[in-house]
């Protein structure tokens, strides 16, 4: 067939297992020269595994990889790079203790080519003699991409590159991807954001449980792709407007109140309140003070000024344990900051239960098992690889990060981008869980980098811009356009102009 001759990359029946967990059963993928090809699938479907097999991070157990019609096996990413196949992995492959320039030399990439690529991505102002560990995550991803571009790839694999990027930076990535497609390169693009896949990609291959279940053109096929990803059980949007808790102006004290909170350069005076039973959304572009806000409320950082009160009682935290004791618990952006990667699910979930002195002494094994099992069941955590947390897929790890607080109990759940890099099915489970938690009387403060989530999961939204609140609206009004205007500081400007 003509289509097969066209494909520059042809993957047939690739399988891979890690101990008892099958990551890929039989993956097929055909990518043409000069196309942007989306690789879609739920968490744990095997997308990242496939990327790593293609680029030689580890070998496949079986199956064939043909490049330009020729059978190829790469033993390391360096070999793949020499053949023009370069990946930007989900976590940056940048060595933190080296400078940016040294990282480029390490990969034998010319600095001039890197600078050109950095200019096209708008990060040319980064000082190449800075240590990578001093550079923020989003910029690091763009530097990683610049390095990949600088080696002039024929096939470029982007594994969730936009997951941690604010919209403005993601747009730059799209522009660069389109530019490289025009030059004849093929791009394999992994993302959970359906809108960007539809806008950017020509075709999509969908994986489910390690098997390729279909290939489709992306134009107008969003619902079809979701159905393929989820299989027979077509999940409906978990939260309809009617399910939202319609609160009357409650006389009860807010579960969490923040007054004029300021911290460092990022947060410059923010006040808001969360009622019991409310899910309050926080939207913002990258670095508008949301990290500082969540860290202060969770006791990770000490604010420079302002007040935090729970149930009307002002609180001062010296340590995250103080916040946990007050019932304010954090699910951080980087889930591995909260979890013990080498310990089993059970210990991870049970850990916060033992953070309080009254629970010291012999462990009540029965009670612990009951609470852990209940939390695991509520979140439908896949326990096949339960003996070591790091072997779970990202989505299941995220569920464990939430489950530990369900088992321990809390008043306000602080979720920082809990659905980053998580598939649609798991996302919906998390939305409905947050709703359920709120209906039982707890409160949720949810920051999300995906704006449509605000309407799906929240009752009300605040928008941060430059360390201050630039907009507040009920979730029903929080469409993407309004949120974006506020996130760029436009609504506040309007308000000031009219005032």
């Amino acid at each position, binding site marked *: 067939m003509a289509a097969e001759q066209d494909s520059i990359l042809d993957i047939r029946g690739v399988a891979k297992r890690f101990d008892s967990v099958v990551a890929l059963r039989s993956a097929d993928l055909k990518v043409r020269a000069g196309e942007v090809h989306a690789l879609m699938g739920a968490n744990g479907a095997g997308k990242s595994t496939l990327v790593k097999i293609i680029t030689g*991070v580890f070998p496949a157990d079986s199956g064939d990889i043909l490049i330009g019609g020729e059978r190829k096996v790469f033993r*390391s*990413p*360096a070999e793949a*790079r020499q053949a023009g196949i370069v*990946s930007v*992995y989900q*976590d*940056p*492959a*940048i*060595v*933190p*203790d*080296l400078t940016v320039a*040294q*990282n480029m*030399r*390490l*990969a*034998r990439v010319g600095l001039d080519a890197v600078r050109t690529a950095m200019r096209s991505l708008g990060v040319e102002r980064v000082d190449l003699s800075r240590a990578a560990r001093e550079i923020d995550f989003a910029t690091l991803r763009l530097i990683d991409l610049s390095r990949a571009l600088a080696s002039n790839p024929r096939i470029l694999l982007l594994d969730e590159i936009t997951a941690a990027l604010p919209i403005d930076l993601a747009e730059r990535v799209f522009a660069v991807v389109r530019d490289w497609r025009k030059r004849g390169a093929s791009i394999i693009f992994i993302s959970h954001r359906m809108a960007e896949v539809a806008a950017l990609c020509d075709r999509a291959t969908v994986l489910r449980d390690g098997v390729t279940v279909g290939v489709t053109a992306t134009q107008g096929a969003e619902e079809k792709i979701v159905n393929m990803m989820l299989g027979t059980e077509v999940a409906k949007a978990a939260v309809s407007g009617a399910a939202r808790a319609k609160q009357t102006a409650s006389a009860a004290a807010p579960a969490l109140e923040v007054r004029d909170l300021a911290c460092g350069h990022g947060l410059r005076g923010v006040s808001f309140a969360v009622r019991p039973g409310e899910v309050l959304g926080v939207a913002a572009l990258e670095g508008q003070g949301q990290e500082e806000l969540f860290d202060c409320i969770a006791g990770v950082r000490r604010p420079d000024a302002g007040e935090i009160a729970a149930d009307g009682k002002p609180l001062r935290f010296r340590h995250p344990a103080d916040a946990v004791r007050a019932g304010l618990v954090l699910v951080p952006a980087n889930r591995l900051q909260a979890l013990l990667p080498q310990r089993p699910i059970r210990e991870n979930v049970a850990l916060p239960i033992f953070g309080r002195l009254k629970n010291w002494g012999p462990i009540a094994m029965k009670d612990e098992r009951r609470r852990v099992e209940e939390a695991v069941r509520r979140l439908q955590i896949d326990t096949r690889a339960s003996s070591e947390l790091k072997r779970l897929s990202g989505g299941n790890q995220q569920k464990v990060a939430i489950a530990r607080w369900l088992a321990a109990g809390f008043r306000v759940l602080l979720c920082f981008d809990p659905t980053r890099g998580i598939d649609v099915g798991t996302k919906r489970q998390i939305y409905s869980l947050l709703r359920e938690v709120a209906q039982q009387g707890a409160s949720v403060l949810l920051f999300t980098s995906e704006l449509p989530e605000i309407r799906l999961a929240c009752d009300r939204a605040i928008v941060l811009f430059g360390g201050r609140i630039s907009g507040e609206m009920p979730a029903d009004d929080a469409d993407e356009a309004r949120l974006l205007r506020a996130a760029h500081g436009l609504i506040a400007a309007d308000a000031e102009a009219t005032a």
Partner: protein
Amino acid sequence: MTDVSAADSGGLVRFVSRRTRLLGMPALFVACILATALIHPDFGSFDVQSLALGALPLAMAAAAQTIVVISGGIDLSVGSLIAVSNVLAASLMQHASFGASLGIAVLILILGAAQGAINGLTVAISRIPDVVVTLTTGFIWGGVALLILERPGGGAPAAFLNIAAGADVSAWLPNALIVMIVVIAAIWLPIKLSRIGLLLYASGSDPVAAFRSGVDIRVARTLAYTFGGIACAAGGLALTMTTGIGAPLAGTYYTLSSVAAAVIGGVSLAGGRGGMVGPVIAALLLTLIPMDLVFLGIDPNYGQVIQGTLIVVVVMIGGFVTFMQERK
């Protein structure tokens, strides 16, 4: 415009804070020398010579440990490798001419490289943790040292011993210090100035990222242990040079002291961070402190307690500096 000046001052702060350790170690050393001069008013060029002579083997051991730790490993066979090269030198050189003894020294350095390479290859290929591999090879080489020379003895030609003795350039610049600087520079600069250094720092800092950047971690680790082995062999030769004999058990002291010197000198045990100047100065410090305790007339048994406490305090200060930097 304010933007630019903020960036400039940020650069200056970064320049100083990045080099806190680099500037801090010499400052600490000078302070200790001044303290010594206060304790012991007779402190003079002769004491400086004996300090440099005493610190020579430890400085080499610290260099060996530093190279391996930066690459993300740890070498617990340092002491045994030093012992093997020490007793081998003392038994082979005993009746040799000066010229022959230099040839023997070269052979011993090559043997050290081979011993290090064995450590490195075992770690890289078997993926057994560094601690286990080097602890066991340390046992083996410790046994070999006893087989070569059962009890302290042997010797070396006077000309060989005199290389590090005395002070030919200036009374305050002892030959031992020159040997120390030249030998360590000869081992370290080729690493630091070439791609090898990049490989070592990268694989120590984040092996996964380094692998994905195209680094062969196995090569990097083997290289680190090989250079470490050369530095250990140099340490054994230095021990022969400074003591005049071979002692099969003398090396054991150097395993833990080399780790202490590396840590005090600002090398992170997690790998990927640190340099060579700090550990070498730390080796001098670790030699100076017992000297001071002798000057003070303190019971040597207390001396060990005090020395251990000082190590902890210095490492804590280093940790505090890092903590303050990261809070910013």
